[in-house]
């Protein structure tokens, strides 16, 4: 009997059922989309902010300048505790050189680095490390060096030397010479414009410093610094130190990297790190507030549409009462109806919301997103709870009415 009643209630008034159904689907899809992306967005934003460049600088620990780091230690950066937070790193080896091209002689800096080196570390996934990854703002005309004697030249240095793409630059350091082919000209508006960038291995030979690097720039995903993070690690208790070490503050990641590079000290580049921290904190709290706003709004929309559709049915309830149904039977019919609509609505809403989250993620961040699986039951259950909450008030009012008065009209 209950089943037949339910079936007919859906089939005989398809329009109002459809309206309620649509509102549940919409509510559930907004909830799914928001819950799905809000967690991801802070991660995506953090990745996005990494394009501001490296936030940790490793240099030789000798304060007086001079001193070098060992190239052999570099792969170890991919094995540290925070290895998954490190999005890239690049070594540099600097030296003053005399450049000559087109008959002009100029003094400048030759800088050996990795452009895009395939790094294979045992037990880790192979990765590509180098300038191209951590300094996306470099505006390179021409191409990136591929061979060992190819180089890119900073715009200011290129102007002084009068060299162009395809030309050659001769570098001389303490009597040793190396001829580079210019494959690109780089504009950054910074120090890079005064340098010649060549592959690390060639530069090591030129400077006669095999296996040495002068600096390493590390780009790492970090959490914003808070009051605890600013404390001096040297004065922490054991528990505090553990907590500090296991939180991805820029200082603790720096410490972590410093430990694997012999004779190094790591400094956070505060220009990048502090601005990034405060920006991330704000974007995260904005997303949180927007998510709450969207959830509350969709819950309200679903409840009210249920309320409206229940309210029109008081004559039906009165009739049921008149022919002898008790409160429980009536409640069972209506709750059953709500349950069916909201489970189906929740399911459709979840699928739709999943798509929505995907669309947002693709358009904004050019990347795919997978909604976590726990969202599926959550979407259905929350759709039911919200729908139920919306129907309780009108149902209670309908149950307390006098059948005679309503039936009279």
């Amino acid at each position, binding site marked *: 009997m209950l089943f037949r009643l339910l079936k007919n209630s859906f089939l005989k008034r398809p329009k109002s059922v459809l309206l309620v159904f649509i509102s549940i689907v919409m509510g559930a899809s907004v909830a799914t989309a928001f819950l799905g992306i809000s967690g991801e967005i802070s991660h995506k934003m953090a990745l*996005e902010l990494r394009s501001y460049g490296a936030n940790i600088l490793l240099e030789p620990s000798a304060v007086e300048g001079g001193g070098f780091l060992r190239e052999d230690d570099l792969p170890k950066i991919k094995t540290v505790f925070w290895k998954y937070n490190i999005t890239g790193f690049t070594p540099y080896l600097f030296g*003053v050189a005399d450049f000559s091209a087109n008959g002009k002689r100029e003094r400048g800096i030759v800088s050996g680095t990795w452009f895009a080196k395939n790094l294979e570390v045992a037990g880790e996934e192979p990765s590509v490390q180098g300038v191209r990854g951590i300094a996306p703002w470099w505006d390179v005309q021409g191409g990136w060096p591929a061979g060992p004697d190819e180089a890119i030249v900073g715009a200011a240095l290129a102007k002084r030397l009068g060299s162009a793409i395809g030309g050659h630059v001769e570098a001389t350091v303490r009597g040793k010479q190396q001829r580079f082919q210019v494959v690109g000209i780089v504009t950054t508006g910074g120090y890079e414009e005064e340098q010649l960038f060549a592959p690390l291995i060639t530069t090591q030979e030129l400077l006669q410093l095999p296996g040495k690097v002068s600096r390493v720039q590390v780009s790492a995903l970090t959490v914003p610094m808070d009051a605890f993070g600013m404390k001096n690690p040297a004065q922490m208790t054991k528990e505090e130190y553990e907590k500090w070490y296991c939180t991805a503050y820029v200082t603790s990641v720096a410490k972590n990297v410093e430990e694997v590079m012999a004779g190094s000290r790591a400094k956070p580049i505060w220009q990048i790190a502090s601005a990034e921290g405060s920006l991330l904190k704000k974007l995260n709290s904005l997303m949180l507030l927007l998510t709450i706003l969207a959830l509350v709004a969709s819950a309200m929309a679903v409840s009210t549409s249920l309320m409206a559709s229940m309210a029109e049915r008081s004559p039906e309830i009165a009739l049921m009462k008149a022919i002898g149904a008790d409160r429980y039977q009536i409640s069972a019919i209506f709750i059953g109806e709500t349950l069916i609509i909201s489970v189906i609505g929740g399911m459709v809403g979840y699928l739709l919301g999943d798509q929505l989250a995907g669309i947002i993620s693709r358009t904004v961040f050019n990347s795919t997103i997978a909604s976590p699986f726990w969202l599926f039951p959550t979407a259905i259950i929350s759709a039911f709870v919200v729908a139920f909450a919306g129907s309780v008030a009108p149902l209670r009012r309908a149950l307390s009415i006098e059948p005679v008065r309503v039936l009279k009209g």
Partner: protein
Amino acid sequence: MNRRRWLLHLVMGAIAHRKGRALLLLSVLAMASSLATALGIVSTSMEKRVAEEVRKYGANLVVTPEASRLDIGSGGLNFGVVSEPAFLDQGQIDSALAKSGVRAEHSYQLRGALHWKERDLMVEGVNFSDIRRLFPWWQLKGSWPAEGESVVGNDLATRYALKPGDSLELVGKAGTVRCRVSGIVTSGGEEDGQLFVSLLNLQQALGMTGQLSQVRLMVTAGNDGIKKSAAVLQQLLPGTKVSEVRQTAHTSEGLLTKVKLLMVMVTAVVLISAGSSVTGTMSTTVLERGKEIGLMKAIGGTRREVMLIFCGEAALLGIGGGIAGYLLGSAIAHFITRTVFSASAEFMPHYLLVSLGVSLFLALLGSFGPMVSVFRLDPVRSLRGE
């Protein structure tokens, strides 16, 4: 009672007799339009807020003498100047900035070596009030310097065991700078190895009054504005090089676009879903009134009149909901901007129109659709409740 007053009477009566229903509709309409208002206000002000945040990355334009070679280094690594330095004229920069109309904060900097205890120190002359704005990432131990005080980079301080309170006597070509160390700066960049004194003192000590080695500018501009400002300044400053700091300028533009796009998507998703829900609720309440419509038609109401009554009702609700929604939405937007950016949201009266528009549109759409389907019914049948 003339016809128009009679219609008005009917509309008011319909609302007054179903107070609960009217309240429900009013609240959903208010909710939808408040969402539109709040999200609209937040997204419009978002660009400005994020642009302000991005300023924390520092200067986006640098003016250097054309002849000079930039200092050598990479990402905060500095090797000093390789060749003989050249200088900028402070007066020329001042007048160019005033003439160009570019809105920018500036920091004048002069770099030079001063002699201290048989050593040459790399000294940077700056205005500390500009530094605080353009280099907000400086982590200062001690205090910001007052008149006759200086700031020492962390590495330099470690190397020479300097601490706040120490006195320095720095000898230059044309004079001597006497100053007290007031603080130690850590930045992770080249600042760590430098000594900062006030610009005027350094200019006097080096005998280089009115000369600068570098000007850093933070230009307030939207899309493309930075490049344009650079071009304008370059024209006014012959003999110098105005370059865009791509690391900050380029990346910030990309970030702003992303944030804006995200806000637009979020707004669209929320509005479409809330809007369709509200329209649905509105339709439900009209559908259930089939009997009433049948009655009106039976006693001789034309389609137009019935439509007028229902639309009038919907419009009244829409206007009420729109106004309430604007107030609520502004409050929400204010709350969000205050919590997130600790700034008060601007007052945007034109969003009242947006809010009214959204609310009216949803109300009319919600009652119009079902009404058309009710009209198709025969009055006799709808009166019988079929």
